[in-house]
């Protein structure tokens, strides 16, 4: 019984890490698709989102099963609760990848010089790195790294704010490119959301490791 239970817990862990890898790949491809205006890659990202959704449901069902059948406590309970929450954050990051990829067709059809002012690369790199670090903190149960992730989100928020100003200026000075600017804003907003979800994941890692809820504490 106990061996069986621990085997199921291991399976839950490896499944959430697998989903993490899938989502990381999706985000990487979405960013590359925008960068290279690669419509095929963008379409693949959008179509692959279903797999992520499916995996999310599978993991949630697995967690519910373990909760119902084994009534875990202490670290096992905290791990399952954290996995369920991280699971939905990963699914949402999958959605952001899809949203980013969704802008590629329009941006390719409406290429303009405004692209130079769009500091997309810096923000994308930072968001991806933060997400990757949140996954690393999960894999290694690394409290220190998780704490750093929580602090790192502010930088991405700041980049999003300057992006917003850039878009506002751009629309004023080049109203003919409004569609392009709105897509930049959409990409920026989605990258900003990636940072938020990475923070959520890191907070759940901290909960798992420490046993008390860390959320909102670092904000004060």
């Amino acid at each position: 019984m106990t061996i069986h239970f621990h085997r199921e817990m291991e399976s839950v862990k490896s499944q959430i890490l697998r989903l993490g890898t899938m989502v990381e790949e999706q985000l990487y491809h979405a960013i590359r698709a925008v960068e290279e205006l690669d419509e095929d890659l963008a379409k693949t990202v959008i179509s692959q989102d279903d797999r992520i959704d499916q995996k999310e449901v599978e993991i949630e069902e697995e967690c519910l099963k373990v909760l119902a059948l084994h009534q875990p406590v202490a670290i096992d309970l905290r791990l399952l609760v954290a996995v369920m929450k991280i699971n939905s954050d990963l699914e949402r990051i999958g959605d952001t990848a899809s949203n980013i990829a969704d802008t590629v067709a329009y941006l390719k059809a409406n290429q303009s010089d405004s692209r130079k002012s769009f500091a997309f690369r810096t923000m994308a790199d930072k968001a991806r790195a933060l997400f990757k670090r949140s996954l690393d903190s999960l894999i290694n149960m690394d409290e220190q790294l998780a704490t750093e992730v929580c602090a790192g989100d502010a930088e991405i928020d700041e980049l999003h704010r300057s992006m917003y100003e850039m878009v506002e200026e751009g629309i004023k000075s080049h109203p003919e490119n409004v569609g392009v600017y709105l897509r930049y804003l959409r990409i920026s907003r989605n990258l900003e959301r990636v940072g938020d979800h990475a923070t959520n994941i890191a907070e759940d890692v901290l909960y798992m490791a420490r046993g008390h809820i860390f959320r909102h504490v670092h904000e004060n």
Partner: protein
Amino acid sequence: MLATMEYKETEQATATSVKVHVEGLRFFYGASEALHGITLDIPEKQVTALIGPSGCGKSTFLRTLNRMNDLIENTRVEGLVEVLGDNIYAPGYDLAELRRRVGMVFQRSNPFPKTIFENIAYGPRIHGVRDRATLEEIVEKSLRNAALWDEVKDRMNQSALGLSGGQQQRLCIARALAVDPEVILMDEPASALDPRSTAAVEDLILELRNQYTIVIVTHNMQQASRVSDFTAFFYEGDLVELGKTPNLFTCPREKRTEDYITGRFG
């Protein structure tokens, strides 16, 4: 934040008064030491669950609280056990009075081979209640408190042995209540019952908590988490950890507690 939670926990434990105070309790079966200096307070009108693997000393500890271990030959107690402020191991301490103030419910229900009425009336009679009307009143009140009255009120003169296992256990709880104790000790009270009777006994424990101080030994950790306010984890004769039940089961402080409750040893 954690520090704040611990602070609140301590605050709560001291806010209610302590019914049982144990300090440096050591217990010996012959030369073998079964409890190695237990210090623990049992708060009033709360349920305290004692958990731990077989042989960890939890039942021995429970039985020291009403001197049931006195019945076992060649045993010895060191340290202090105060129940309701009195040192119960002091020379000349009134054992009959102790048993009245500290009721006990055992693993296997053990009704007397008498009628339902007589089972409950037995204790009060021993303590000098003779008046029939008073006895009837005590019997009804005890059975009501044990959530058994509605099921047995029309068969008070039938043998208690005709009741189901779950009913017999609640009868034994009613019998313990009849002498108006302040503390109730329960040693695996539901381990021989089916899930439905177990649920009835657990509901009853939660009801009784409002009036009595309850200490329960259980092997069933889900049961401990369902019915208790505080949980004490015993291991190899030591008290490893005592904490508020929700905290102990979500984030125990000690590694040994975590290993035990998550099934990693024990």
